């Protein structure tokens, strides 16, 4: 519980309740960006519905000078712009907090019936109706008006907002004009009617100078461009669509040949996901770096061909921006529910390489890695992102690029090498990674090879003979194990006096690290490991070995990461060591979920936080 008599700078959370399709997103984004430009660590989470217009949508902003910007679960201020959800929204204001609402029409009392919070009524509708005539404009500008009020209430730097508006509408003077009017009216009303700023407020700092504001899907697309991907095939699906939108944009900017004006890329909007993965496999078979981006339902549809790529040993990069399953599930909610579906995708004995980015900057880094691994190990590689990472803007370190980087294309024989060979055999000899060299079509007839998903021997010939068949699939198993050394190492944070460990993955990172700090403040000391790749390497095994009790924090119901850690490591008693903390309601993880789950169990240690417990019941 916060003391709200004293002033609290750069440490609060607010939530904006809107109706989707009313233009609130841009106003909210503007505010978040402004805070970022003030140099203050901030996060913005867009909790939107699977719908185009008219349903409830929320935008959560958390400001924290220490960079603890995982999702917060109680709010100092809620901007309630949606009649439908108003009742629910009021409840979520923390005791002592504030609620900003449109006071154009009087609210019936029971909606104002909380005497532990402060109601800030702003006649937004009336204000914009006075200024604007066009009804669409009135709807849009109302958002800018409440933004104006927030500028005053939170001490957002007005100059920065002005500047951003000018950037945005440099070519649309009229719009710029309207935005300024709306902004001022909101601002001035707040100044005149409330004592601004509120006890919790902003104050410039310089914690973001070396940072950027970017969403994971854009970063992934950028990674694919820098990795040298030339063929992309996809079928639209939330929340992965923006990966291809961004890839297309970047290609138009960077891949159009200066002289010829021709394109050094080919993006194929496939008829479905079965076709999309087929196109990727065909392109990779032919020597291009190719990828697809999709979400759960697409992974299910790709199952058969993923097995083909695995068995015929064709590289393929599959970006899975996970959403809440099963089936159609909740397309605009986040989850980490495809871990097993990807690790073992397809019928028969199959095992795949997985990469787990935790933030947009890692999406950039690991998407490049994905292509190198796919080509080095001649197999499908999954980049397992999620909606929270992929579609929300995150504050991250500037992306770096080393111009000396050259892609690892794996073992591919040149015309000369083929010429020199007595005879080419596709699946032998194998190298230390248990990978054999491949030949590409069109290079040399000595490299001619007939690729098949049916039984084949180590020479590449068709076979139905048991030991010939086994020789190949056994090598595939060894090859997968060999990839453990090649996938990115886990992130490990040890603390003196740690009594247990916490393992997590992907987007849980921030919340779990915050939880570890909070726990430490309570004297509950834990080591931290975040896996970044599967198969698991020695450092994961070592961590498992060196801790007797380990919490596995992940966002799915069935403890999928725990299953992988149990079955795919060789640590004595591993299953018994691993306890699960599972949060899978569809909203991003908060440190509270973890702190509560751990304190509930971890002895010695204080009793669980009531609030957290409540929260956990409600969302955890």
């Amino acid at each position, binding site marked *: 519980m916060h003391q709200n008599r004293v002033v609290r700078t750069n440490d609060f959370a607010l939530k904006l309740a809107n109706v989707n399709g009313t233009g609130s997103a841009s106003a909210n984004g503007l505010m978040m960006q402004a805070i970022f430009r003030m140099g203050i660590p901030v996060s913005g989470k867009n909790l939107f519905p699977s719908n185009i217009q008219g349903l409830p949508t929320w935008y959560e902003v958390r400001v924290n000078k220490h960079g603890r910007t995982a999702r917060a679960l109680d709010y100092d201020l809620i901007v309630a712009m949606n009649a439908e959800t108003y009742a629910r929204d009021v409840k979520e204001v923390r005791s002592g907090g504030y609620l900003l609402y449109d006071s154009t029409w009087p609210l019936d009392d029971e909606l104002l019936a909380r005497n532990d919070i402060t109601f800030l009524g702003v006649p937004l509708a009336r204000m914009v109706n006075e200024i604007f005539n066009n009804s669409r404009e009135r709807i849009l500008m109302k958002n800018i008006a409440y933004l104006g009020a927030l500028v005053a209430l939170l001490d957002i730097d007005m100059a920065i907002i002005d500047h951003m508006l000018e950037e945005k509408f440099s070519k649309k003077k009229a719009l710029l004009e309207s935005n300024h009017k709306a902004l001022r009216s909101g601002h001035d009303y707040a100044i005149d009617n409330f004592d601004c700023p509120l006890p919790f407020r902003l104050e410039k700092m310089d914690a973001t100078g070396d940072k950027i504001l970017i969403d994971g899907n854009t970063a992934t697309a950028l990674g694919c461009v820098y990795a040298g991907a030339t063929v992309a095939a996809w079928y639209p699906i939330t929340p992965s669509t923006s990966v291809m939108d961004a890839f297309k944009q970047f290609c138009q900017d960077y891949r159009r040949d200066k002289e010829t004006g021709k394109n050094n890329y080919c993006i194929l909007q496939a008829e479905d996901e079965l076709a999309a993965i087929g196109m990727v496999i065909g392109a990779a078979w032919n020597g291009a770096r190719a990828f697809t981006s999709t979400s759960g339902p697409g992974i299910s549809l790709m199952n058969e061909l993923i097995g083909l790529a695995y068995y015929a040993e064709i590289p393929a990069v599959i970006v899975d921006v996970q959403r809440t399953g099963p089936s159609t599930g909740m397309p605009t909610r986040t989850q980490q529910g495809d871990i097993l579906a990807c690790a073992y995708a397809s019928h028969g004995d199959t095992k795949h390489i997985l990469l787990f980015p935790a933030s947009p900057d890692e999406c950039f880094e690991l998407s490049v890695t994905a292509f190198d691994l796919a080509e080095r190990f001649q197999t499908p590689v999954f980049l397992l992102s999620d909606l929270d990472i992929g579609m929300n803007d995150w504050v991250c370190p500037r*992306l770096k690029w080393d111009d000396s980087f050259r892609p690892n294309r794996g073992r591919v024989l040149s015309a000369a090498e083929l010429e020199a060979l007595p005879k080419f055999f596709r699946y032998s000899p194998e190298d230390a990674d248990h990978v054999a060299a491949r030949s590409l079509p069109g290079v040399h007839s000595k490299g001619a090879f007939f690729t098949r998903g049916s039984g084949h021997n180590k020479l590449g010939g068709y076979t139905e003979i048991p030991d010939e068949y086994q020789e190949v699939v056994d090598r595939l198993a060894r090859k997968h194990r060999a990839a453990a050394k090649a996938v990115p190492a886990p992130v490990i944070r040890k603390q003196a006096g740690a009594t247990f460990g916490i393992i997590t993955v992907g987007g849980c990172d921030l919340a779990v690290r915050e939880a570890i700090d909070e726990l430490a403040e309570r004297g509950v000391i834990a080591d931290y490991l975040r896996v970044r790749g599967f198969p698991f390497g020695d450092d994961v095994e070592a961590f498992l070995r060196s801790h007797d009790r380990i919490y596995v924090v992940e966002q799915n119901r069935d403890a999928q990461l725990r299953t992988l850690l149990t079955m795919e490591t060789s640590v004595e008693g591993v299953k018994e060591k691993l306890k699960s903390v599972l949060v899978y309601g569809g909203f991003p993880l908060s440190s509270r979920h973890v702190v509560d789950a751990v304190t509930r169990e971890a002895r010695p240690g204080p009793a669980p936080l009531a609030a957290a417990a409540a929260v956990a019941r409600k969302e955890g």
Partner: protein
Amino acid sequence: MASIKKPAVLHPNLRPNAIGLTMRDYEGAMSTLCAGCGHDSVTAAIVRAFYELDTPPHMIAKLSGIGCSSKTPTYFVSGAHGFNSAHGRMPAIATGANAANRALTYIGISGDGDSLSIGLGQLCHAIRRNLNMLYVIENNGVYGLTKGQFSASADVGTKSKKGEANRQSPIDPVMLALTLGATFVARSFSGDKAQLVPLLKAGLAHRGFALIDVISPCVTFNDHEGSTKSYLHTRKHLLQLVQADFVPPAREITADYDAGSTVNVTLHDGSNVRLSKVERDYDPTDRRAVFASLQQRQGRGEVPTGLLYVDKGSGDVHDMNGTSDTPLAQVPYEKLCPGSAALDRLQEAFR
């Protein structure tokens, strides 16, 4: 000891072609299909077509799905890269392959089950994209490899080996392709090599999606009395509407011909297809007319064959995409990576 041997594809002569290869150089592994399977005749025609086109084997990409028909790429041009993929998915894989390397010659072999049931969606969309490839459907009206179920091309009333009659209306790949805007549509018969070889050559030379529906009887499961895809029935009802002669780029068209009964189409690579029509009023370049005429004839139970429709006008995937001439798979990395400076500039937009 019993063992049915099938002759390797025939090679009448060993005369080298323009690039010094003999017909034998275009052959593949020995067929493992049933003796007398129509598919083996198609294989033989393909061998000859490539031989006569002087195509360098390693510049050929041969793809297929799953089925007896889809096995046939193993049986021709062992010097070419092949991909026997998954059931019904060859069109997508060919699309990706083509996107990565536009310099190769693509031939896809499929069956009526592979193309018209599980693969129907992908076939239709490959046609829409006007993917630059020759797509051969070895059409026998049944699922051969799974032992004789009716396929979607089985005609109403045709009888299974057990004597059951099919009641569902067939999907006619030719009509379907015409409806979807295909730019090269032909039908032929595995038993008519003289017609098939020039069609294959024209289809390979055509830039865009060339579909050849080849009636290719299944001797084991659908060559019986009462089947409308048997050798007998096909021979009886087959009618060659347009006879296509393929004239390679170099060679020039000599000998004057009756303008009314002959049309000459020059393909992108400069080669010519000379179409001699059985009927004066049949215009293989007028989609609507072709449609009407085919509907009428097929309504009469005829099986019109030949190069039924051709349109060299429209562009393929790469034309629509404006892809660079260098195959994407061969564009050097330096041209693909924008580099650190660009990245720094770009990130100004992310503040």
